[in-house]
């Protein structure tokens, strides 16, 4: 193994260097300039994001345990951009709250370790690497969810997340052990050649899928979502709903489309039922939420249901639509969480009723929120519409007309509750609206990037074609 092949892990190596540099910086920065760690971390991560765009060739390392190709590389860049926007949005919160308690550096180290775990998870070439990446991505986030140690809700969110994710990974491992029993290997490349639909391998598939379903918060496994999102700090809730979910969807897609492809007649029926249940339960529970974070939690469950529409067809078109939808979803959800965070940081208010009359006092924030919600709902000019539209086309192309019809019904339900928030912001008049405030530069930058993303992704069609070309490897 020479240095050239080692450099194929460039994303991972640079991120590891960033983590190490932050540890050194923690020691050397004087206590009077504590805030500079935030600027340093954002700067270093920005460099990492830009360096990630350099092209990389397709190959595999360590005897097939680690592999990389154009699609995986592209998805790592999507995750990078998401985390960069998230850091920008939480920069003010970090400076005002977390750094003052001397917990700033640890925040970045934990967050970046989790991202590192996701890199390893999505480039995994065998189930051992996949499991290690999964755990590395979950454990730091659980610590971060319990990060505001003085708040009871935060600790509760942490314990709920760690216990349910431990159960999920345990169940998943039990499934993997059954797949190992039927095929005699943990390497994806070896499993593809020998796997057949026997009873044991089907049980293994179901248990494995249950474990990943927890991460994506599909319906029978969604109970932790709302509680964790409400209790955790907002940037961590945003991380869980955007980055963590996106990475889990991606690796689930890879494993279903390549390794477990011979069992497709089993898992397409499974996905069919779960998609319907996820969409309905996510949407119907979102209707009755008062807290903005719980509201976004249930909305993200419903969005996971829509993603399954692309997964169910299991070919190149499915891959392209799922990746495109996740890309759009990253920007829309980050914008929504960003506005919630900006308001919560200044006023501490998180309920939908607190947003009444927001347009009169803070027109720009309301417009960003409106764009984000329109994109999540799928209203034409913005990117979310195209994301959903392609998913529906993908499902219809394989003849799932009933499923598409149910999804359209759910889009209508979703439109109702997204518009409830828009109505509160634009049409309601109230005397004690949130007063005008100005966010700092990081937050504004973070929101501007998401708005550009929401508007540009829908219009710039070569991007979708580019993703479609990349997904040819998962055909």
């Amino acid at each position: 193994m020479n240095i050239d092949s080692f450099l194929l892990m460039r994303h991972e190596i640079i991120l590891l260097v960033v983590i190490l540099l932050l540890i050194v910086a923690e020691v050397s920065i004087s206590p009077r300039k504590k805030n500079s760690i935030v600027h340093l971390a954002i700067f270093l991560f920005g460099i990492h994001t830009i360096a990630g765009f350099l092209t990389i060739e397709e190959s595999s390392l360590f005897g097939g345990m680690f592999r990389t190709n154009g699609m995986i590389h592209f998805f790592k860049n999507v995750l990078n951009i998401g985390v960069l926007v998230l850091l920008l949005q939480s920069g003010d919160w970090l400076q005002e709250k977390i750094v003052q308690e001397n917990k700033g550096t640890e925040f970045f180290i934990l967050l970046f370790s989790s991202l590192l775990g996701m890199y390893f998870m999505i480039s995994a070439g065998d189930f051992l690497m996949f499991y290690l990446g999964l755990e590395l991505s979950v454990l730091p986030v659980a610590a971060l969810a319990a990060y505001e140690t003085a708040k009871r809700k935060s600790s509760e969110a942490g314990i709920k997340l760690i216990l349910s994710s431990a159960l999920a990974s345990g169940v998943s491992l039990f499934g993997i052990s059954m797949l190992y029993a039927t095929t005699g290997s943990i390497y994806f490349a070896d499993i593809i050649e020998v796997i057949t639909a026997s009873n044991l391998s089907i049980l293994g598939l179901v248990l494995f899928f249950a474990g990943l379903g927890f991460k994506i918060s599909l319906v029978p496994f969604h109970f932790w979502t709302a509680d964790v999102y409400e209790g955790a700090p907002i940037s961590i809730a945003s991380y869980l709903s955007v980055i963590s979910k996106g990475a889990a969807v991606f690796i689930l897609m890879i494993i279903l489309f390549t390794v477990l492809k011979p069992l497709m007649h089993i898992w397409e029926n499974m996905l069919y039922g779960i998609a319907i249940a996820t969409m309905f339960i996510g949407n119907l529970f979102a209707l009755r939420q008062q807290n903005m974070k719980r509201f976004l939690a249930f909305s993200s469950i419903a969005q996971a249901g829509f993603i399954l529409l692309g997964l169910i067809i299991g070919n190149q078109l499915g891959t392209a639509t799922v990746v495109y939808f996740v890309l759009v979803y990253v920007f829309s959800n980050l914008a929504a969480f960003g506005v919630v965070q900006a308001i919560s940081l200044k006023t501490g208010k998180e309920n939908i009723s607190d947003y009444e009359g927001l347009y009169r006092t803070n027109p720009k924030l309301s417009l960003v929120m409106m764009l984000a919600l329109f994109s999540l709902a799928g209203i034409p000019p913005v990117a979310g519409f195209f994301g959903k539209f392609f998913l529906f086309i993908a499902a219809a192309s394989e003849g799932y007309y009933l499923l598409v019809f149910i999804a359209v019904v759910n889009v209508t339900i979703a439109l109702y509750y997204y518009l409830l928030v828009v109505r509160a912001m634009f049409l309601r008049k109230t005397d004690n609206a949130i007063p005008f405030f100005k966010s700092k530069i990081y937050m504004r930058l973070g929101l501007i990037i998401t708005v550009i993303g929401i508007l540009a992704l829908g219009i710039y069609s070569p991007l979708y074609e580019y993703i479609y070309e990349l997904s040819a490897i998962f055909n």
Partner: protein
Amino acid sequence: MIEGISIYEILALTTILFFIGVYGFVTRKNLISILISVELILNASVVNFVVINKYLYPDMLQGVFVSIFIIAVAAAETALAVSIIINLYRQINSVEVKDTEVMKY
């Protein structure tokens, strides 16, 4: 390999262990007990990997490797969970599930 014991007995044992863990996770009222139940599930899969490796595919050591990694990760998981539970205990003086219900609906 153990004389006189086939793979079926051991796999039945690990499956029972797995479902005891799931049952305990759902029914226990104490956070520490829930953590122990999760450990049962993880250990069931550890034994599974070792046994399948030894009985079915003895020429490669993949299953044994996986089980070593699972043990290490499970230790990290438990340490983190216990530290969060301790932090919670400092605030509410309890590790019961019924006391962690501030957020509902």
